[in-house]
């Protein structure tokens, strides 16, 4: 792998020596990537999107603890408020040092990663983003929202539309869906994943949750995997002799005859895609089953020793660790991984469900980050959350209903841990940040700004940012030298 200095030198020589304008332009584009990112392929990077589908009530995840704001919180949430001073300390909000805020009592390890305590002593890995949501253009005030003069996302408060908008980052809606992770792959897969030469092709987007709009680009797609590795045509996973035999039969009986005998263009293309998919699956599975060592650590042993909770979401995180650990074997300098944790639509039984589910989330993220630290991958991986929407502040008696803005977390070595970015809203029902009908907070920080900061780190240049995030200039100039939100170190 050439160093940044070596590459810049060679690219400059190539540009000077070339008489072709096209060649020079190509070199300049490459140099732009190298200069912008501080190293062309010298550092592998992975972005892990954790989607909390159903609409997580994140105003019970990040909670004010100062007396005044807490009183507003408690009044708004009534029977759903998390206590500050319950006789049983395990029911209380966990303070985040020096912020005036705290986390839900189930988030013990996330608080450690924020505060740099416990198993993360001296290593603050977690930042929080307050009041973030889907926007087309900024909304300065409640009056702005009510004026009717601001372009608003399509179908606020509805699950499917808001999931789609978090994943596409185009809240106006799209005729043909593509996600911002997929569009990022469109612009950087060929420029960063340059170890893939000849006929070798491995997509940079991996989904552990089936097909998602997030990773579908115009030319790049996603590679769907499971906790056991690559999907096969008969649904089996793993690399056992039986599964290998089944795969071979599929190749022989389905793909090859179509390729050879049919003259129809669509059938031939389908046959080729099928055959390629089987080959890629086999290639992936081979490395997934034998991840070997990384930085002198046995990958399987590190995962086995990590304190993953006994919950199904842990399987997805274990598979994510492996997929990141084998990125070099897969010839990927950039990769995204999509994980989905569903079931957050808590119209009823919010307190009990949230306690259990946030506990599982906390444990899984903690164990995942421990794996990355022990494998020496922490500096190259960022994990971030999204969710359909925030929820109403007002209780419906048993839970909360659909709303708009919420809070999100960003985790990893490159993150400026221990900070809360964004502007935490007033939680007064019908207050200045509530657009009405039960405490529906409007966002002051756009999903675009959030994603833009991640994409800058990932290697998307200012010139390409408009294609990946079409609304970004309504909030931020991608050519700016400062971060849009400033949660990265």
């Amino acid at each position, binding site marked *: 792998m050439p160093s940044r200095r070596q590459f810049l030198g060679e690219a400059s020589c190539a540009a000077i020596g070339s008489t072709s304008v096209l060649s020079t332009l190509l070199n300049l584009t490459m140099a732009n990537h190298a200069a912008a990112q501080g190293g062309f392929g010298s550092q592998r990077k992975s972005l892990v999107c954790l989607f909390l589908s159903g609409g997580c009530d994140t105003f019970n995840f990040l909670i004010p603890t100062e007396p005044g704001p807490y009183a507003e919180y408690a009044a708004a949430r009534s029977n759903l408020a998390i206590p500050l001073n319950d006789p049983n300390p395990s029911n209380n909000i966990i303070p985040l040092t020096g912020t005036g805020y705290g986390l839900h009592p189930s988030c013990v390890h996330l608080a450690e990663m924020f505060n740099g305590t416990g198993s993360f002593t001296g290593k603050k890995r977690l930042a929080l983003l307050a009041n973030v949501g889907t926007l087309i253009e900024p909304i300065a005030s409640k009056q702005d929202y009510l004026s009717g003069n601001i*372009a608003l996302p399509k179908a606020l408060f*509805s699950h499917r539309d808001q999931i789609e908008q978090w994943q596409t980052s185009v809240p106006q809606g799209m005729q043909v869906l593509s996600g911002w992770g997929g569009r990022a792959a469109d612009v950087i897969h060929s420029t960063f994943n340059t170890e893939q030469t000849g006929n070798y092709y491995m997509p940079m987007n991996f989904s552990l949750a089936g097909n998602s709009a997030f990773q579908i680009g115009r030319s790049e797609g996603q590679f769907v995997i499971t906790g056991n590795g690559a999907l096969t045509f008969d649904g089996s996973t793993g690399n056992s002799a039986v599964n290998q035999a089944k795969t071979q039969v599929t190749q022989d009986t389905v793909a090859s005859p179509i390729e050879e005998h049919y003259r129809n263009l669509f059938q031939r293309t389908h046959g080729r895609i099928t055959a390629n998919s089987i080959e890629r699956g086999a290639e992936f599975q081979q490395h997934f089953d034998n991840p070997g060592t990384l930085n002198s650590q046995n990958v399987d042993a590190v995962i086995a020793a990590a304190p993953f909770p006994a919950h199904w979401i842990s399987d997805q995180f274990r598979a994510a660790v492996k997929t990141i650990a084998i990125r070099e074997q897969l010839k990927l300098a950039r990769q995204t991984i999509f994980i989905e944790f569903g079931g957050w639509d808590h119209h009823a039984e919010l307190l009990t469900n949230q306690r259990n589910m946030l506990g599982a989330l906390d444990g899984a993220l903690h164990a995942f980050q421990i794996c990355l630290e022990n494998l020496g991958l922490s500096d190259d991986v960022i994990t971030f959350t999204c969710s359909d929407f925030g929820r109403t502040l007002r209780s419906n008696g048993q839970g909360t209903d659909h709303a708009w803005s919420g809070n999100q977390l960003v985790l990893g070595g490159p993150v400026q841990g221990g900070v809360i970015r964004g502007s935490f809203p007033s939680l007064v029902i019908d207050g200045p940040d509530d657009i009405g009908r039960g405490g529906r907070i409007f966002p002051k920080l756009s999903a675009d700004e959030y994603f833009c900061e991640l994409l800058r780190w990932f290697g998307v240049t200012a010139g390409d940012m408009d294609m990946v995030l079409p609304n970004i200039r309504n909030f931020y100039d991608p050519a700016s030298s400062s971060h849009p939100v400033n949660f990265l170190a």
Partner: protein
Amino acid sequence: MRRWKWLVWLAFAATIGLVTWTFLSTDQEKEPLRSSMPASPPPVQTPANPVPGDLLLAGYADPATAPIEDLRKIHRVVAGYFTVIKDGSRFPIGGNADLAAALRGENANREVFVRGDSPVFSGDGLLVDRWGSPLVVHPEAWRQLAIRSAGPDRRAYTADDLVLLPSGRQARPGE
């Protein structure tokens, strides 16, 4: 001569009009996408006579009919609403209060689909079932609303709930 002067004046006025229109329309194109909704929407005029939604809701909560029929009636009104209202961004529907207000005219067209004095509304303006409990309106997607009645026990999310899915099919128990 006089006719000729009129023609000159007419041509001059047309040119000025064209230039003004071109100038204004160029400016509008530079603006980000905005709603056609005026800044201060006009007040909703309540019609004196029943509107189509009122007719579709005739017999609502009639004890002679099955309770699920009440939800089907609302489903038909909602289907009509989304056939007429095409603006997916203004007046979003997140629950009962939004839908009730939208049917009474708080929508992009300022059109009344159900009059405010309909028995389908409670005193505080919410859509209620035949037992007097507010319906649970669950937006799964734009135009796709699931409607839940808390049933005779008047507690939502219990075994006696009645749920009509966005497709118009009644949900099976536990679905």
